[in-house]
């Protein structure tokens, strides 16, 4: 019997990557019909007309509509909720723990949810990070923290350029400096990283991406001195298992097929 999977499009990188591999897998399977769209304000209509067996939704797209849907249909429909952002309201955590929703948990969100079907810490989208042989520009790239106070405390470079120190920063428009070269999209990060000779990642978010592009990843510890970088993080051993593709194929797809 054909099963229908409803996948809600989402803005977060994690949700986009997971959705991509679900689509890639189930889109070719004649036993499954995949509905992929932005289902805000269309979820109930889609439920009535298409009768989905499985619903995949990201917490970053959580609305009253999906909340009500979980209340009404979580016993009939397999609802998979991707926890891709931190839950601020404790009553939602309590609600989800008491519901029949299946959780995929990003551990970085530090959400206390019971019995997730799968959880991950760091994953990367390997299709975007591969250019290991590109000529480097002998410059160091600073991936700025989202918290600008941290940027100001860590990057103690003079604001006046008196000498060329070959460092540039991207990722937070609040950081007021002539070396701040703007913001970036995750989809472009591979192309950006592969130009540079080293990376300082203040929020420690893109270690796998840097390794995939063969770029030395600067260690930020108590001895960190931006004007004298000497210490780098070692490579992660199982990087091939830290891809969204691997995670979806080994953790989510078997669960949906069950």
């Amino acid at each position, binding site marked *: 019997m054909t099963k229908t999977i409803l996948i809600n499009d989402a803005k977060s990188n994690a949700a986009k990557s997971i959705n991509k591999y679900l689509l890639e897998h189930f889109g070719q399977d004649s036993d499954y019909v995949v509905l992929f769209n932005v289902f805000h304000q269309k979820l109930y209509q889609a439920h009535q007309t298409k009768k989905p067996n499985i619903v995949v939704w990201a917490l970053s797209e959580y609305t009253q509509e999906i909340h009500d849907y979980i209340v009404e249909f979580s016993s009939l429909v397999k609802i998979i909720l991707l926890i891709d952002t931190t839950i601020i309201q404790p009553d939602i955590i309590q609600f989800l723990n008491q519901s029949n929703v299946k959780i995929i948990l990003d551990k970085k969100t530090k959400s206390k949810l019971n019995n997730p079907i799968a959880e991950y810490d760091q994953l990367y989208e390997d299709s975007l990070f591969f250019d290991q042989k590109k000529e480097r*520009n002998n410059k160091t790239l600073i991936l700025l923290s989202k918290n600008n106070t941290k940027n100001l405390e860590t990057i103690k470079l003079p604001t006046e*350029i008196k000498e060329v120190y070959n460092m540039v920063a991207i990722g937070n428009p609040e950081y007021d400096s*002539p070396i701040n*070269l*703007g913001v*970036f*999209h995750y989809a472009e990060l591979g192309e950006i990283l592969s130009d540079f000779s080293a990376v300082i990642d203040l929020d420690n978010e893109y270690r796998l991406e840097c390794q995939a592009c063969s770029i030395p990843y600067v260690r930020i510890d108590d001895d960190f001195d931006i004007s004298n970088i000497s210490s780098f993080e070692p490579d992660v051993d199982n990087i091939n298992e830290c891809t969204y593709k691997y995670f979806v194929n080994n953790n989510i797809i078997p669960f949906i097929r069950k």
Partner: protein
Amino acid sequence: MNIGFYLLDVEQTNKKHQVILKCINELYAIRPYDNIVLFNNKFSTVDPDQKYYTLHISEAKYFKGILFVFDIKSAMLTKSFPASKKQILFIDKPEWSEKRDVPYMFWKHIYNHEDFELITANETMEKLCDNCWRKPLSNLKDLNGEQINAVLQKL
């Protein structure tokens, strides 16, 4: 040699424009046998010393020569021009750090564009460009015909 200057909205009150027009006239005095063209869309100024040709900016797309541009807006428009031998982007301020919510790739596609050479207005900008993008072709001590001629000789 064909030498073009791409200048949008030339205004009488814009000091930078007046300096550039003066510079073009000085360049003509140095290189009287070259074709020196100003490409513009609006020319609201009086230049009694005018020695250059003027053409509409739409003509610049197929201009076969060296094209000077003086701001990011112009560079955005000219970067895809297929005919110019080389484009020279004059940088007198760090526009990227004034508009920090613009994506890095936007700036990169201009400042690191292979058809562009960078020239800077002062030593600080030269160091900043070298730090952030790449070493400029030249740093002008002053924006005048002699300095522009020196840039052309470096090409």
